[in-house]
Every structure is written in structure tokens, then in C-alpha cells.
């Protein structure tokens, strides 16, 4: 590999665009011809690109933050236990410190009192970092949406990568969300305009922490991340 480019590939005579396909259906952009690749593998030579290797490593060691807010957390705990065994996906290493975590699973109702702390924990996580909003409350406020003390979805303060509906979602749903996130990570291109946020210079890795006002959070949402939906009713 030369010139320090992240997606430098081994030069082959194969046509470009023939991407390798992972067993779970995702595509790796190695640019190496699949036939040549398997032929080389038979001879004990493995070809890859830095991007592929980097994403493969990241996708299979997503360490979540130990962090539960309500009943969804019980399902999250169940997912990490023997029956559902999140360890199969490399995501069982729940870290007690945000400094060592890659993934924040917002599992449960985010009250307005708790929201500033959730945002602060996210800010303390190092890049690259991802957010899964687990359950109806974390997505939209759920049954408490029109109440006085529940945040109407964590997406108004944090960039959510995967949302899981359900009340609470089954552990299988959380596993599906982690697989979806793995696929997202595997398909990230490290160069070009679609590269992930942590490789974009000047892109924010921290988001403003809201303050507790007299009746509501101030500001009630981060306008850069979230805009209220426009109602069109006929």
C-alpha cells in the first residue's frame, strides 16, 4: 500500500466494481475481483484493502456503553446474556466508561431531567461513535409523548444511527439493530464526500448540552440535528 490513502487497493487486472459480498449480504468495497480473490485464498494469499480491514475490525468490536434508562434496559441485559448472546457480534463488552465505548444504546424513557446527562455522556465518548435509539420512548417519547416530563425522542439532541421500534423491543430486535449498524459500518467509505463524520475535518463530535429551564429544556431541540415535522392534513 502506498501514499497513505485509506482505500488503496492491490492492483489487479480485474474489472472494477466487483465487490466482495459478506455472508450476511453486505458488500465490501475492496475492488478485488471475487474469483481472483478466492483463487488467491486457496494459495494462502489474502487480499484486502485498508478500508475493508478497518471497517471489519470496527464492525466486529462495537463496544456499547453500560447505560440503561428504563424497561428497555432489561431487554438489553437479556440480549447480552447466554440465551441471546450478543457476544456473537462482538458487542458484549459493555464499558462502564464513555471513554472506552463506541456505541450508546439509549434504552428507555429519556426524561427531561436525564436528557442533559445523556448528551454529556455522548460528548464524552471518543469518535467514531454511534447511537441506537431503543424502544418507543427513546424514538419519540412513546406513550408519554404528550406529557410534561419526557423528552419526545433523543433524536432532537443526538444523531441517531439506528432506531428500534417496540415497547420494549425483543432482544432479537436489538441484535438486528446491531447487525444493521455493523452493515452500516462495513459500507462506510473512508474517503470521498460520504465518509463518516469522524473523518470530516470540522464536523462536530460534541453536541450542545441542553439546560433545565422553568418548565422545559432550553433549547427544546438542537435545530442543526432535528426540525419539527411539517403537518399536511387533508
Amino acid at each position, binding site marked *: 500500500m502506498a501514499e497513505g490513502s485509506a482505500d488503496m487497493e492491490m492492483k489487479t487486472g480485474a474489472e472494477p466494481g466487483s465487490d466482495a459480498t459478506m455472508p450476511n449480504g453486505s458488500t465490501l468495497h475492496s475492488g478485488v475481483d471475487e474469483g481472483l480473490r478466492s483463487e488467491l485464498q486457496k494459495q494462502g494469499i489474502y487480499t484486502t484493502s485498508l478500508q475493508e480491514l478497518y471497517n471489519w475490525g470496527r464492525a466486529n468490536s462495537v463496544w456499547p456503553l453500560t447505560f440503561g434508562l428504563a424497561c428497555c434496559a432489561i431487554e438489553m441485559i437479556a440480549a447480552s446474556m447466554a440465551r441471546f448472546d450478543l457476544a456473537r457480534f462482538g458487542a458484549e463488552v459493555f464499558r462502564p466508561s464513555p471513554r472506552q465505548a463506541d456505541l450508546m444504546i439509549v434504552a428507555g424513557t429519556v426524561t427531561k*431531567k436525564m436528557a442533559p446527562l445523556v448528551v454529556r455522556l455522548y460528548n464524552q465518548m471518543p469518535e467514531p461513535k454511534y447511537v441506537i435509539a431503543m424502544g418507543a420512548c427513546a424514538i419519540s417519547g412513546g406513550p408519554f409523548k404528550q406529557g410534561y*416530563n419526557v423528552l*419526545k425522542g433523543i433524536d432532537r439532541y443526538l444523531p441517531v444511527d439506528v432506531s428500534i421500534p417496540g415497547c420494549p423491543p425483543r432482544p432479537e430486535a436489538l441484535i438486528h439493530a446491531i447487525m444493521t449498524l455493523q452493515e452500516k459500518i462495513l459500507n462506510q467509505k473512508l474517503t470521498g464526500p460520504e465518509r463518516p463524520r469522524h473523518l470530516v475535518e470540522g464536523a462536530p463530535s460534541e453536541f450542545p448540552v441542553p439546560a*433545565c429551564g422553568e418548565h*422545559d429544556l432550553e433549547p427544546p431541540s438542537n435545530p442543526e440535528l432535528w426540525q419539527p415535522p411539517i403537518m399536511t392534513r387533508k
Partner: protein
Amino acid sequence: METPEQIKSRLETAVPDAKIEILPNDCPVGERSLLVDPVRILAVAKFLRDDPQLRLDYCSNVTGVDWPAAEVTEKIKVKQVVNGVENEIEEVKKTVRPGFLEVVYHLYSMELKHGPVVLRQRTTNRDAEAPAISLTPVWRGCEFQEREVFDLFGIRLEGHPDLRRILMWDGFKGFPMRRDYVAPDDFEYEPTPHDEVLEQAQKHYPPEVKA
């Protein structure tokens, strides 16, 4: 276990100056409660806890009730003299009952395995920090639940060791469980609004859609 009447009569001998009233209950269970004047409620509570026949050593639940001012209609028979003949006429008298706040305690006995006895106390008004008497000195387990009553109903419980908000944050204004609390108007799109949410939703529709 003793009936509320028996408890009341024994209480009146033990704590002579306590004003105790038995509140009726119309629901099928018909569980009546003892309404005690806040002035002597601490002595009443200590009696209920220490009395060998009652031994109500466990306070399982503390909650608040908000009673806003309401109009009470009463039918009163009034004697009237019309043309020298005395007649009894029914008159409908409307009075405004001032609002008040109530603290409710559910008491059980772990030792004698009976309960509940429902104990209530009332404030005199619905002011921002209407005073009542804390029973945390009698039942230590009341502490957090009385803080919740203070937080959500705004009843200042005198004698509480650490009276702060517990569910809402410290800078919060107002008491959300009171009937007249108005939450901030932050309605958002709801796919299937109904009842109060529908009313709220209609307020937020653009004017041309409303018609």
C-alpha cells in the same frame, strides 16, 4: 382488625384534642379513611404505630390529592310564613367549597399482619407551599414519597428532614400533578390523536386545514 369507628373512639381517648373524622367511600370496596387534623396528626400517627392492638408499623404508600375549589349544591328546608300560614319550602343553596390539598397514607402492620388503615390530612388552602405535617419522624419510609408529594403537589410537609424536589429538577416551576397545572405548549404531530390530544392537535393545525 378494628373498624374505623373503634379506632376513632380509642384515638379520641388517647389523643383527646385531636379532631378525627371518618370519610365515607362510595366505591364497592368501601374502604373508609380517617381524616385527622394536621395539628395533632403526629400524636395520632405515633399512637397508631405503637398501640399493641394496631401496631401499624409499615407505611406502604403516601400520595397527594388535589381538590380545587368547587360549587356545592345543597337542598335546605326553610320555614316560610306566607299569608299567616307556615310552610316548609325546599331551597337549593349553592356554596363554594374552598380548595385544599390532601395527603393520604396507607398503613399496614407487618407484626400483626393486618391493614390497611387509611390516614388523611388536609391543608387549609391551595397556596404554592401549603403546610401540612410530615410523618417521616414516625415512619422513616415516608421520606421519598413525601418528597414526591412536595414535588408534584406543592405541599410543604413540616418536620421533613430533607424536603427537596425528587422527580423534577431543582429549577422547575409549578406542581405538575395539580389540576390547574398547564404544561408548556409543545404539541407535536400525532398520527392518531384523540380526546385531549385531539383538541390540542386541532389548535396546532394551520388555519386552512382547520375548516
